[in-house]
């Protein structure tokens, strides 16, 4: 009887049209995830499948989103970071439970330290066996709690659409950062019966980032800047995250205030701008560091006063009244006492400053004094006819790419030389591991950057040691024919470790020299990628010209002088005014 009724009803109901079929809500957790990712406009997923995420990958097979199969989860997440940094959108990563998830830990921490938006999906063993040390189980929620902006374990499939919305919202607003969503395998296969849960709005009473500056605080900042004799702007990555480059340049030019950058803030003002003093900090320019030591008003926008920037805090900007604009209130006053705190988005704060009725301070004398310093103590290196110097290599790359390439790096000597000698013209073209200083970051990040801007020229400048940590991602260049140019500044050493051992450990080179190297050209060729080797300055020009302009992926092994050091330098524990290696005399 009842079967008959059902049949009749089924007949009475019209067949769903194509349009209706497409809007039909997904049937299980995995399909919900894919649908929710599509709703968020996700263009590409970086990931690696495994047991616990098999249902998710099966759903991806049926309802595809472009997916990049890295060769190691660390490669996947650094690629996602590069994508996030260049596109401004959250990078999406999927990895399986246990080892898949724990392989992401470095990348999650890196993204946390550099405020990059990531949404990371990890598989988890089924709810029924969580806590039993099941096969491929790891407590990824516990592990990632201190290294994420927030994390979730999905307990009920009905919560999935809400959690994904919240995860993307948290990752991409306020001070950005990584969010982990852990999905037990049974949740991924659970039948989804609550299509209305897709319509839930994000409602997070405990998360209300302040984006608009306080008017009175802006007035105080204006007052301080107007009366400054030696004002200085320290522009950090917050400018880039907020897309406030035009406002910064406008403000700088309107009131003629010199600017310096943090490592991560490079590109927020054009590298050749007349009021730009170069990068500040441990390997910053002499001018920038002296400006920080001598300024009387310091306007920090979107930088967190990292210890590599400030040097010894007791001697940092001792004469300055500090104004600090940051979207994260916890950064203000954390390291440096702040007279005028302004909690706001960098763009909104700069807009308010530009709109304020402000007299320009008298700065010509100050600017001239700083220009003299730059003339007297420019960045320097001593040419050596017998060897290619890393600085020369970067200068050639800079000239050939006209400062317009997207440049990625790891951490170490090559990173500092790139920061010093590759004067960026564009924002969002600088992808480097700042806060965590992650070896192996630069190359996969370049792959992600290329996915974000397929038409851009992307150059990964890496060291020989760091490159070997994630070199397996050459497979991706091969598979997708991604035209990333890998430039290895190969000095056969962990360069910065070697430099510190030379300077602070009496030349005791404990485990920092790599006497035996693979043949990187052959390695490239093994992946069907063209490889070049450069051993002298004479070769460099021609090879770079050919390689950098090619539309194909290329690897260039630059055999550079091993003994070359990064100067100038602020020794650890010293103040910015105590720089060493300021001149080559």
């Amino acid at each position: 009887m009842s079967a008959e009724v059902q049949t009749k009803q089924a007949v009475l109901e019209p067949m769903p049209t194509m349009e209706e079929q497409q809007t039909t809500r997904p049937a299980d957790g995995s399909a919900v995830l894919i649908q929710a990712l599509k709703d968020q406009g996700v263009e590409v997923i970086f990931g690696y499948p495994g047991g616990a995420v098999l249902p998710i990958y099966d759903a991806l097979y049926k309802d595809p989103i472009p997916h990049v199969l890295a060769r190691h989860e660390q490669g996947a997440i650094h690629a996602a970071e590069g994508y996030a940094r260049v596109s401004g959108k959250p990078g999406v990563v999927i990895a399986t439970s246990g080892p898949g998830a724990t392989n992401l830990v470095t990348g999650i921490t890196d993204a946390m330290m550099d405020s990059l938006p990531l949404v990371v999906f990890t598989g988890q063993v089924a709810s029924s066996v969580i806590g039993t040390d099941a096969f491929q189980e790891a407590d990824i929620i516990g592990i990632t709690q201190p290294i994420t902006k927030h994390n979730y374990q999905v307990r009920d499939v009905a919560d999935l659409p809400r959690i994904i919305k919240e995860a993307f919202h948290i990752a991409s607003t306020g001070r950005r950062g990584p969010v982990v969503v852990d999905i037990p395998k049974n949740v991924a296969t659970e039948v989804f019966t609550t299509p209305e849960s897709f319509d839930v709005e994000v409602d997070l009473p405990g998360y209300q980032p302040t984006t608009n500056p306080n008017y009175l605080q802006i007035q105080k900042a204006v007052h301080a800047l107007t009366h400054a004799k030696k004002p200085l702007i320290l522009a950090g990555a917050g400018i880039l995250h907020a897309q406030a480059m035009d406002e910064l340049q406008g403000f700088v030019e309107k009131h003629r205030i010199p600017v310096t950058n943090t490592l991560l803030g490079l590109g927020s003002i054009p590298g050749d701008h007349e009021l730009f003093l170069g990068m500040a900090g441990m390997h910053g320019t002499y001018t920038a560091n002296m400006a920080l030591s001598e300024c009387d008003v310091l306007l920090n926008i979107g930088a967190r006063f990292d210890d590599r920037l400030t040097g010894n805090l007791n001697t940092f900007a001792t004469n300055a009244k500090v104004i600090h604009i940051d979207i994260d209130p916890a950064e203000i006053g954390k390291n440096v006492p702040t007279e005028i705190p302004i909690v706001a988005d960098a763009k909104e704060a700069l807009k308010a400053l530009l709109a304020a009725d402000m007299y320009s301070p008298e700065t010509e004398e100050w600017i001239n004094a700083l220009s003299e310093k730059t003339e007297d103590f420019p960045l320097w290196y001593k040419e050596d006819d017998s060897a290619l110097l890393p600085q020369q290599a970067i200068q050639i790359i800079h000239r050939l790419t006209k400062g317009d390439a997207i440049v990625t790096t790891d951490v170490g000597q090559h990173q500092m030389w790139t920061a010093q000698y590759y004067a960026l013209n564009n924002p969002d073209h600088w992808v480097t591991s700042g806060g965590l200083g992650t070896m192996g970051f630069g190359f996969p990040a370049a792959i992600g950057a290329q996915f974000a801007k397929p038409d851009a020229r992307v150059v990964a400048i890496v060291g020989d040691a760091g490159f070997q940590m994630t070199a397996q991602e050459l497979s991706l260049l091969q598979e997708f024919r991604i035209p990333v140019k890998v430039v290895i500044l190969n000095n056969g050493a962990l360069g910065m470790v070697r430099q510190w051992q030379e300077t602070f450990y009496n030349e005791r080179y404990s485990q920092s020299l790599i006497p035996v190297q693979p043949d990187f050209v052959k390695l490239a060729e093994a992946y069907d990628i063209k490889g070049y080797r450069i051993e002298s300055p004479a070769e460099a020009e021609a090879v770079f010209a050919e390689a950098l302009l090619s539309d194909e992926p290329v690897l260039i092994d630059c055999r550079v002088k091993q003994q070359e050091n990064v100067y100038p330098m602020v020794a650890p524990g010293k103040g910015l005014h105590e720089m060493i290696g300021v001149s080559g005399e």
Partner: protein
Amino acid sequence: MRRIITVTVINQSGVLNRVTGLLMKRQFNIESITVGHSEQPGMSKMTFIVHVEDEGKIEQLVKQLQKQIDVIKVNDITEKAIVMRELALVKVVAPPQARSEINSIVEPFRATIIDAGKNVVTYQVVGNPEKIEAFIDLVKPYGIKELSRTGATAFVRDMQKAPSPQLSILK
């Protein structure tokens, strides 16, 4: 110095871990911590006492807690007029001949006997941590067999001290 912080959180699994993990990561030493339901459904209240040597660090602690997505409100109530209570259960060695002596000594503390055995008496004492401390010191000579303290829970009094009139004249 000792600070008393109350934190209102969304009652989700892992939230206590998140808060204590944050304190550990930032090297704050927790003296005591209590958690329980609040008057609002789905919300819990934590009270913790931390020792912070550097005055500037307390602001950092409050800001870092405030940043957590599950944290609704953070209050440093150290300087406020507050009510604060801790409960302790103390099992004291009390042979019959000493029992009345101990009872009379602890009487001002309004401790209640909640269990008694042949040679032991278990007292329950409620008060601010200093009072608990004093109680323990008092019974210690008799021998404490077991001690369990809950940690302090607190909130601000409804009536806060009015600003002192002398100060407003000085203004």
